Structures are given as C-alpha cells and as structure tokens.
C-alpha cells in the first residue's frame, strides 16, 4: 500500500500542469475523468501504433472523440452495436494491436457481457475496456443507464483486472497502467463531473496496490471510485470528535490488495466499504472474502446499493439517498463503532 495526500474539499483554483510517465496533461484540475482518459489514450496512441480505439456511437459521451480527431486511422465507431465490437476487438488483439473499447459501463458489462467473457477473457486477449457513466453518475438518465453491477460482473471473469479510479488524476494513471499491463483490463469511471480527490500527480498508482489516504486506528473505510473522496471528507469530519479513521483507496478491485485489508482488520477491527455499486459482488464482497479467509473477527458494513434499483435523480442526491456520500459514511462510522463482534483470543494486540 502506498501513501498519498488527498484534497478534501474544493478543487484547486489554479490550473496545474501534470506530467505522467509518457504523457503531459494541461489543466488537470479542470479536466474530468472522461476527458482525462480521452487525452491520455490519445497521447498514448500518438506514441504507440498498436493502440486503437473502438466505440459504439458514444465517442462524444465517452470523450474518446479527441482520439478520433488526432488518430482517425485508428479510431473505429461501430454504431449502436456493442456485442460485435468486443468480438472485433478480440480479433484485432490477435494481430498484436491493443484495442481500447469505450462505452457506457452498463453496455460493456451487461449487454456485451458474454462477448467480454468469451472473446476477451477466456481467450486472454489484450483488450482494454473503459466503462463510463458507471454507478449512478448518469443519475437523471434513469436506471437503464445507471450501472451498479459492472464490478460484480467483471470481477467474476477469470483473467480480468478491474480498476475504479477515484478521480481524473487517478484515471490518468490507471489508463497508463492499463496500457502497460498485458491482458484484459476493465476501468470504470463516472460521467465526468466529479471533484478531484488527489491534489496533484505525486502519488503511486500500481495495479493491485491500494493507496493509504488517511491513517487511523479506530476504524477503516475502504472505498473505490467516486466515494473515495467522500470517505476522506467523512474521516476529516469525525476527527475533531476524536475518531481516528483509516481511509484506503482500493482502486484495484481485482486483484485486490489483501495485505492492506488484513492489516486494517488487525489494526482497527472495524471496517466499512463504500462503492457506487450494488453491495452484491462488488468491492464490499471482495473485501469480505479477504476478511473471511483471514479467519479474524471484525465489525463490518458494506455501503452501496442494497440489492435494489437506483431511482432517478442528480448523482449527488442519489449518493446521499443511498448513503455513499460523506454524510452516509459518517453515520455508518458511528454505527459500526458501536457494533459488537466476537474478538479473537489469539491476536497479538489482545
């Protein structure tokens, strides 16, 4: 687990120039997750002729349109037809290309699920998938366009790596890591209006290694994606009351950072997971699997959509309603701190 300092609060007012390993991004403070990935991909494609982009009539919505302008000969729009697009990506990968498929999370993970499974994962094809508008980030579009199941679906596919970056800066690093990784990768991002969590580019982003954003001893909040910033805000809010909260950005849900989870169980004995996703099969389930395997007792709560379909509304209203914003996390912290659980006898700290 690497450490980093997040910004809890408003985005920085001054535009900053952020430099990655192979690309340069201007105005990282004001670019959204989606704009950033479009930019990073375009830069990568200009340097690496193997990178090709595929979309299904969502070039504008998924912000991959920049790629189309700069590298038109390696940009392919398949119209509103996702299944074939993933099959084509698999075939392109056979020729040594690195196809990056971009569409809404709900279509990548559900409509085209069998193509992702059979043509990409089963055949170990080097195809990259970026699911945008995940969770309820496209709140007003309604439940058909929400996607609260993609982590669960993608996580259960063998050979797949699943990443949910917390903000635009993390997305830039995630895209870079994705391109360097050999094998299928799924990155889920929001619609692109989310405030930044990381204040600059000075942090590690390694697939499978979580980031420690706040250290703490009373309770641990493990979050992925947009709720990471909310977890940081919640931690800062309860701090004056003397509650010491550890916050972990579990940006890679598969393979998950087991070591960080077991250490959190050992150190804080109380854990909360937060995700913009159903609590069935997502981050919370992945963390619960690790806790169960460790054989150690702890108080545990999963925040997310509780096996239900999300209602229509503004994303921030929905995050509040379903308890995955800072308010919801603060309440859950209070409840889990009071929760009884069976303590192990043989732990060295007892």
């Amino acid at each position, binding site marked *: 687990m690497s450490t980093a300092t997040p910004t809890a609060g408003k985005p920085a007012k001054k535009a900053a120039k952020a430099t990655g390993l192979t690309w340069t991004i201007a105005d990282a403070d004001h670019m959204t997750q989606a704009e950033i990935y479009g930019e990073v991909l375009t830069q990568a494609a200009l340097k690496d002729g193997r990178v090709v982009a595929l979309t299904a009539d969502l070039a504008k919505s998924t912000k991959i349109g920049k790629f189309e302008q700069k590298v038109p000969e390696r940009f392919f729009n398949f119209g509103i037809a996702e299944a074939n697009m993933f099959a084509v*990506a698999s075939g392109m990968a056979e020729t040594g290309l690195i196809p990056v498929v971009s569409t809404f999370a709900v279509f990548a993970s559900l409509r085209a699920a069998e193509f992702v499974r059979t043509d990409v994962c089963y055949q170990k094809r080097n195809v990259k998938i970026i699911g945008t508008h995940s969770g309820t980030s496209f709140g007003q579009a309604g439940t058909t366009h929400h996607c609260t199941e993609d982590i669960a679906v993608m996580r259960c596919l063998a050979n797949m790596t699943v990443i949910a970056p917390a903000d635009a800066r993390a997305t830039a690093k995630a895209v870079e890591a994705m391109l360097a990784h050999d094998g299928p990768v799924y990155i889920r991002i929001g619609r692109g209006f989310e405030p930044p969590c990381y204040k600059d580019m000075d942090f590690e982003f390694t697939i499978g290694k979580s980031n420690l954003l706040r250290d703490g001893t009373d309770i641990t909040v493990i979050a992925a994606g947009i709720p990471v910033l909310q977890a940081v805000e919640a931690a800062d809010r309860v701090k004056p009351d003397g509650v010491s909260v550890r916050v972990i950005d579990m940006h890679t849900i598969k393979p998950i950072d087991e070591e960080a989870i077991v250490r959190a169980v050992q150190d804080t004995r109380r854990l909360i997971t937060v995700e913009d996703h159903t609590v069935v099969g997502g981050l919370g389930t992945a963390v619960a699997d690790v806790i169960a395997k460790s054989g150690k007792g702890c108080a545990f709560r999963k925040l997310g959509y509780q096996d239900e379909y999300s209602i229509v509304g503004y994303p921030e209203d929905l995050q509040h309603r379903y308890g995955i914003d800072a308010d919801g996390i603060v309440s859950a912290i209070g409840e889990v701190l009071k929760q009884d659980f069976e303590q192990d006898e043989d732990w060295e700290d007892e």
Partner: protein
Amino acid sequence: MLAAAERKRLQDKARAIREEIVKVTYACGGSHIGGAMSQTDVLVALYYKYMRIDPARPDWEDRDRFVLSKGHGGVGHAVVLADKGYFERKLLDDFNKTGSPFGMHLDRLKVRGVDASTGSLGHGFGISIGMAMGARLTGRQFRVYCVVGDGECHEGSVWESAMAAGHFKPTNLTVFVDRNRFCLDGPTEEVMPLDPLDGKFESFGWRVLSIDGHDFDAICGAIETAHAETARPVVVIANTVKGKGVDFMENQTAWHYGGLDDRMKARALESIARS
C-alpha cells in the same frame, strides 16, 4: 475449372477427413457430426489449396487466419488440423474426455492451429473481422477465412458483424455460410426462416456468391473470385447437405449431434467410401 487430378486430390482428401470424423465420433461417444460433414469440403479447399500456413509455426504472424464461427464443427476442424500436422493424430483418441485439450468446441489456448476459441454462436464472425482489420492496420498481407453456420445467422450479433464489415470493407476477409438448412431443432426455414440469405447480405453491403458447397470447382472458383474482389467483403453461401457423405445422416435433424455404435460406424464408413 480444376484440373481433373486436382479435383480428385481434394475429393480424396475430403473423403479421408469425413472418415476421420466418423472414427473420432465413434471413439468419443458423440459429436456434432452433421455440421462437421457439411462444412468439410470448404475446409479442405482452404486448408489444402489456399491458406498460407505453417503447421510447424502456429503463431507465425503472417499466416492466414481461419475462424470456425460455427464452433460446434470443431470435431471436423480438429481432424483437419491433425492431418495437417499441428499435433499428433493419437491425441484425438481422447476427444471429449476429461482433461483432454479437445472438446466439442476448440480452445485456441489448448489446440495448436486454432486461431479463435469459438462455440458460442455469433462470436467468430466479428473476431474474423477484427483480424482482417488488424492485418490492414499492421500492414500485413494475410487473409482471414471464416465459416459461419446458417443457423448461427439467427444470432443478432451476426448481423452486427455483417453491418460492420459492410461499412469497414475488409476485403482480405472471406466468409462462408455453411448453408445446410438445419439448426438443432429442425430445418432453419421452419424454426426461424433465413431466406433470402443472399439478399440479406447484399443489403448489408456484401458481395454474395451462392454455390454448391460440395463442388470443388465452385468452392475454388468462389475463393479466387473473393481474392480478386477489392471493393466489398465477400460472403460465399455454400449450399451444403447436413451429414454429407453418410447416407443415413443426410438431411436428418437427428444427426445434428450423435454417437455411433459399431454397426453405424461401419455403415458410415462404407457410405463415405462410395461417395
């Protein structure tokens, strides 16, 4: 027109492949033998006359690719690959057995010479388009051949693929539809009609060649016509007979999938020898 000796060479090879399909089916307890028989002549023309491949180098980057989109014809494809020398024939003795690399639908990561793992219908067609587009993008000259089942054309994704190829025009791709007119539950025109199949592809922007899929002159002529086409992707509707070569299997819904006992095996081999 093929020279008589060339025609006979291909016919003899097709007969040998069909005999092998019968023997493997007998040994493994059952296979999708009907469709394996109907596709055989197209596979023989491709593998024994046209494809630029090297069985010693199954990963050779410039090899022609073959995708059996109707993956249930895998038993027939495996027999061809064994005969070409991709692996030893005796490995097929374990076909379908627990732990064998060979199941009904071939896995590219387990079987040398298989370019795409297929089985679920409506996938291989799109994969072959990706390979053909990839050849163009990477500046390679290889060709891609794909065999789609006619029942497979019930799948919506086939028409997504047909539409995409009509748009991107990969002329280095040749698609065959094994038009044996049967799917699992019965004749295609009763289960879910496909005709006019040629008109459907034409309206999606394809050049359509409709041939007798058991006539090597016609198959070879179609392949050469496809090679010469520079404007549109080519689909060859190979009109075939399900169970071709085995008299008691031909055009029988029941022989979509089946096993053979000693008596049936002997009769099947006799029938193929006469064909």
